[in-house]
């Protein structure tokens, strides 16, 4: 019998492209302090476990988990790192509670992207060293190839992808956490500088610094705490092939499988009608469309036209990325998924301020780990 698990605390810091006045430890301390205060807990007394998501190469430190405990109040406690998205870490924490091993577990992930001089070179280091890396190409070429293949297959059009950028950057205008909000037109997106044809600069998310901390608890603990629990109704994660030569290029198989598992665990049969809104990865504008279809939130081949018609706007039939997504908020590297989850939790609590959706009872957060991976995580939250 699986125990119910809820998000009972939320904290954040940063969400700015440059944070020269703080280290990653100070960023984390600030977010953790907010989260513990929000949940009404003492990390030294009330928390059994801690999980962080981080990658050595993003941090510039090998065995980075060494440096994770102190700023969370986690020294001499059960703590471990997941080298994955923050939503993988959330899944790990979920399992530690669902198993009955622990009652309260803290999840943390952060981005100090501004410390990285040459992020694209690091991303390229994720390619296979024998057969792929010798091509010596900027890693964005992978996204360019994928988008070309999907346009050629008439899954969506270039202007439809541009609409995603317009929508998300406009949504971000109502979000105080957003670094890349803008009121722009479709032609601005299409005419901005090319990155990897047909992707232009305004169709690719830029990075930002920040930290998100969530506190998870079992049902009894959640009901005893002061705040309104937001339940984790279901979750799933999956990988496709890491190799460029053998992955699925015509669909986001990782998203389809992660979504299927999340819906199965949440007992959701018709995601489009049972879920009210979604925060899905839009690291590249076309990825939002691909992910919506793979997650069965849009019918195959229709995500583009649906978006162009306004169906996924904040006031539309099915709001997608009301926060502004990675395109509007900025991508938080390994914390990108937790930023999606943060918006879902705020919406379900009714604390999303100017961007509050009228109907927000069930929401989905979906993260893709970015280039060059085929790794995705989906989490369904309910109030």
């Amino acid at each position, binding site marked *: 019998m699986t125990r119910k698990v809820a998000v009972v605390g939320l904290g954040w810091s940063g969400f700015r492209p440059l944070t020269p006045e703080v280290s990653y430890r100070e960023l984390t301390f600030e977010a953790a302090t907010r989260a513990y205060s929000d949940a009404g807990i003492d990390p030294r007394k009330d928390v059994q476990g*801690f999980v962080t998501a981080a990658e050595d190469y993003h941090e510039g430190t090998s065995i980075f988990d*060494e440096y994770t405990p102190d700023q969370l109040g986690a020294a*001499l406690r059960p703590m471990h*790192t997941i080298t994955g998205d923050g939503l993988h870490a959330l899944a790990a924490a979920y*399992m530690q509670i669902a198993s009955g091993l622990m009652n309260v577990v803290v999840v943390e992930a952060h981005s100090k992207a501004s410390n990285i001089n040459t992020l694209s070179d690091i991303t390229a280091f994720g390619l*296979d060293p024998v057969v792929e890396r010798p091509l010596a190409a900027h890693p964005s070429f992978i996204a360019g190839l994928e988008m070309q293949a999907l346009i050629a297959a008439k899954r969506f059009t270039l202007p439809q992808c541009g609409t995603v950028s317009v929508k998300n950057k406009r949504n971000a205008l109502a979000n105080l956490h957003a670094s890349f909000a803008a009121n722009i037109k479709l032609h601005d997106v299409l005419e901005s500088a090319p990155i990897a044809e047909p992707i232009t600069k305004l169709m690719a998310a830029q990075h930002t610094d920040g930290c998100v901390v969530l506190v998870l608890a079992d049902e009894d603990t959640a009901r005893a705490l002061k705040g309104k629990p937001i339940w984790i109704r279901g979750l799933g994660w999956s990988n496709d092939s890491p190799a460029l030569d053998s992955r699925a290029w015509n669909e986001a198989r990782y998203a389809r499988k992660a979504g299927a598992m999340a819906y199965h665990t949440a007992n959701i049969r018709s995601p489009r009608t049972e879920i009210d809104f979604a925060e899905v990865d839009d690291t590249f504008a076309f990825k939002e469309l691909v992910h919506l279809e793979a997650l069965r939130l849009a019918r195959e081949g229709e995500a583009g036209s649906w978006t162009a018609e306004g169906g996924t706007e904040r006031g539309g039939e099915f709001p997608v990325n009301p926060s502004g997504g990675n395109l509007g908020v900025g991508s938080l590297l390994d914390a990108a998924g937790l930023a999606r989850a943060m918006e879902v939790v705020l919406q379900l609590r009714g604390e999303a301020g100017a961007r509050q959706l009228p109907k927000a009872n069930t929401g989905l957060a979906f993260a893709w780990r970015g280039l060059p991976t085929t790794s995705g995580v989906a989490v369904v939250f309910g109030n």
Partner: protein
Amino acid sequence: MSMRRVAVVGAGMTKFVRRSLETGRELAWEAASKALESCEMTLDDIDSVVMGSAPDAFDGVHMKSEWLADGAGAWGKPYMRGYVGGGTGVFAPAQGWYHIASGLFDTCLVVCEEKMSPCRPHPQAAFISIFDNFTERALGPNLLWIFALEMNAYMNRYGLKKEDIAQVAVKNKRNAADHPASLLGDANITLQDILNSEVLAYPVQRLDVSPVTDGAVALVLAADHVARRVTNKPVWFEGVGWNLDTAYWTDRDLSYPTYVEEAARMAYKMAGITEPRKQIHIAEPYDPFDYKELHHLEGLMLFPKGKAPEATALGITQRNGDLPVCPSGGLLGVGNPIAAAGLMKVAELFWQLRGEAGARQVPGDPRRGVAQAWGDLMQVGTVVVLGK
């Protein structure tokens, strides 16, 4: 509340070697395949995959777990890599345990891979990047130096001599002579060989240290109802524990691993163990250095503080002793492909408890064993208790 029971039903490993011709993905594949074959299962039977691997800097691949995914059998499956530095190898099976215990999955393939040899001229150089970038890196430290500090602290606290510690290396390298996958097994090695080896950073000498190694190990984990269908000799998880201390290692008493004790207490509580020395029949503590085995035996509360050297001298920790310790040969003998070495210890418990350890089999029908790993900046303890 009662937790779901989880068993180990299969295990497999590659040979541990100094420089493998296989890529990391191939090593992971070989171990995973052998583990599946050992219990006559296929990838179709596997619901989830857990990867364990230490720094990306060894393989020189960013997001190493993503790159290893298909080698580990994770194509199209839920896949996650947990990471606690050198403690990863014993943490990974604990992570596999919670995958199944959570109720989300019935089976989990746990794969630990490490290929240190791509880092040239020597992987020790990669360790410069584990130190604090403001306060420590500028000093140019390496692991041998800081572990020499720890070894010194331990020796000074209890008045130990090099001989008291080097006997561990003799025992483990001799034990490893019976391990078909070992890199440094030597049935004829003597205490003098250890004491005469080159000094690296006093008091650490070359044969006090485990070697740089490539290799991979895999386990198949299953929930109760699946395990009973797969095998008539399931080996059960009785306890899991892990604990991470502060990054400020310079502020700690290095003579005793409190974090190992805390991890052990967590695992023992879950296993209902109140008197570890009586209730545990085999121990596979982490032994990348010979003094670490002694240190960890004390942290695991199997011997009183400062008393593990004496127990070793009395032969208690020999394979035919009262508490066999590292009957596999440990990291000092079998080799130390970081995360894979930790999982090798859990695999050894699996084989020992099933009576399948061949020439390494400890006598007396052991019923319960503990495996432990350690890592980061002398900072993390991970513990798994298995029983039959």
